[in-house]
């Protein structure tokens, strides 16, 4: 991380520093995103993982500056292409949205406008950002539909969303997101609303398109299987903070944070048949009464003295990995690795 106010190096496409987004509601202030730092290099894919309410989606909407009342971004910097997005005017932001940064939404059934043909919706962003003629934008829409694997695109382009299946609509949403050759694609749970076979197809499609276009991708999901298949790096969020980040294989095989470990051990297929499923005991903390120290402390099986009163910092542990846990600072680091036997925590495999 660079100094505040200083743009990150050229090869870093997106760098989020100390992002804080709050929701001021009747009962008080909810710090949905509470000091999030991460960066994304050009062409890289990063998976942002966490359970519901951990602040993943709010993080992505903050990057797009689409946070609405009663929410507000109250601090931090979002560097994209040498500019701090939080300092741009709304007009400049409109130029970036859908052009340099695009979003793929979770619900293909509702994220397309029911009263326009899919072609009109894809063409709109092309006309808006590329100032293309109606004809050119329309041709681009057909081309995009072909690219995302929709058969007979010349006919489909004239259809309305209600004439398509969920999987096909999600392909249209992806086509919309890619129509202007974005540098960054934010995919917010793009496969959650789809059934499993379609999920696999859509993930395959996104991987292919990401590789072909060279765009960077921020994939937001709660599904570790999706992350494992799709991304290069992973960041795990809990209660509005990133608790662990690193290369995806490293992190999933040798989790350094008890929360990541808990997520991994609660995947059913990892437990032998007949055994009880591991669960992370307790629930996500009430956002109005967050623990004073580490936010995960009340649920953590390894919690000890410093955890109760002091929130640990996100510390680099080498090998491009970071973790937010007091356990890590201990000389006799005793985090039992139950996922893969015979590995030393913190070290390379």
């Amino acid at each position, binding site marked *: 991380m660079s100094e505040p106010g200083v743009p990150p190096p050229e090869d870093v496409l997106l760098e989020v520093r100390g992002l804080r987004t709050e929701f001021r509601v009747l009962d008080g202030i909810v710090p949905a995103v509470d000091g999030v730092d991460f960066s994304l290099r050009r062409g890289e894919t990063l998976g942002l993982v966490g359970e519901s309410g951990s602040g993943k989606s709010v993080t992505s909407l903050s990057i797009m500056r689409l946070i609405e009342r009663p929410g507000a971004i109250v601090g931090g910097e979002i560097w994209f292409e040498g500019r701090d997005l939080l300092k741009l005017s709304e007009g400049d932001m409109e*130029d970036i949205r859908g052009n340099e940064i695009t*979003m793929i939404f979770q619900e293909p059934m509702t994220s397309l*406008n029911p009263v326009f043909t899919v072609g009109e919706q894809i063409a709109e962003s092309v006309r808006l950002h590329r100032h293309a003629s109606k004809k050119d934008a329309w041709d681009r829409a057909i081309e995009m539909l072909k690219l995302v694997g929709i058969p007979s695109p010349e006919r489909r382009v004239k259809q309305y969303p209600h004439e398509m299946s969920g999987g096909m609509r999600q392909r249209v949403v992806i086509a919309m997101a890619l129509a202007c050759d974005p540098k960054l694609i934010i995919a917010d749970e793009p496969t959650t609303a789809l059934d499993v076979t379609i999920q696999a197809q859509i993930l395959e499609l996104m991987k292919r398109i990401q590789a072909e276009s060279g765009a960077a991708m921020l994939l937001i999901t709660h599904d570790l299987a999706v992350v494992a298949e799709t991304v290069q790096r992973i960041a795990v969020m809990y209660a509005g903070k990133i608790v662990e980040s690193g290369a995806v294989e490293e992190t999933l095989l040798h989790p350094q944070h008890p929360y990541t470990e808990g997520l991994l051990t609660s995947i059913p297929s990892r437990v032998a048949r007949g055994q009880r499923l591991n669960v992370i005991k307790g629930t996500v903390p009430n956002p109005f009464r967050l623990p004073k120290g580490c936010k995960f402390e009340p649920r953590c099986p390894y919690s000890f003295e410093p955890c109760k009163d002091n929130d640990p910092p996100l510390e680099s542990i080498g090998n491009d990995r970071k973790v937010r846990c007091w356990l890590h600072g201990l000389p006799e680091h005793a985090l039992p690795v139950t996922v893969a036997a015979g590995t030393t925590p913190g070290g390379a495999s």
Partner: protein
Amino acid sequence: MALPDMQSPSALQLGGPGDGAGTEDVEVALESLSQWQLAWRRFKLHRLAAVGLCIFGFMVLMAIFGPILDPYDPIFIPNAHVPGGDPPSLAHLFGTDDVGRDVFAMVVNGARISVTIGVFSMLIAGIVGVLVGAVAGYVGGLVDNVLMRIVDVFFAIPFLFVILVASRFFGQGQLIPLILIFGLLSWPLISRLVRAMFLSLREADFVEAARAVGVSDFRITFRHILPSALGPVIVAMTLIMASNIVLEAFVSFLGFGLTEDQTSWGNALSNAQTVLSQGNWWWAFFPGMAIALTVLAINFIGDGLRDALDPRSRL
């Protein structure tokens, strides 16, 4: 009835794309219907609405062409006339009034003014109502509060009284001021409706998606949200048109509307009020029927539109 030809192409479509030229042809035959095409299809199935449309269409044609074809001038007073007026005859289909003016000519010419007032006051109410409602619903917050309190004021004032006074003092018996008055007094209903639609639609995923694509607020309001909100607005607008036609007749009947030299249905009725008890029924009957038929027809149309534009109704 339309089922067989709708089903067969989609059944064939299961063969999948790229199955050869034959399949491709069938797929092209499967037309995509827009929201409006579907609505029109449903509208046609609504019998009463179709009848209403025919009647209203006839009234509009009469308003446009009637005065050209009709031999009588509605305000022409002949030298020789029957006191108390002629009953309907071949020469005067709807009879004449006590000074010999042709009632048929009054009805035909009155259509022009009544339909004009109905249509244009509706358009004014629609435009103002949609603008105010859209801004209030989309922007929200203080703007919404101020605009909706203004609407509340409009609902709180005694409407009829204001219309009578305004018609007398600002209307001056002329058509355009009357249209403006009617239009500017009937938009609050529409703006409330539009605001409610916008409040729910602005949270829709597709609106968020449009914002994520970089569409400006202005474009989102009018290009993305408005088409979805238009159905109920159109229905409300037809009702406003009907009520404004009645209102004009009422205001003119009371003598606060158009001057004597302009023939509206309300004026024709107004002339008839003194002699109704003498058995000269035709003075009042024909203009009255014209008003009733038109309003009924418009209400039927509104009814049909309500069904046709409701996306939940699947006919």
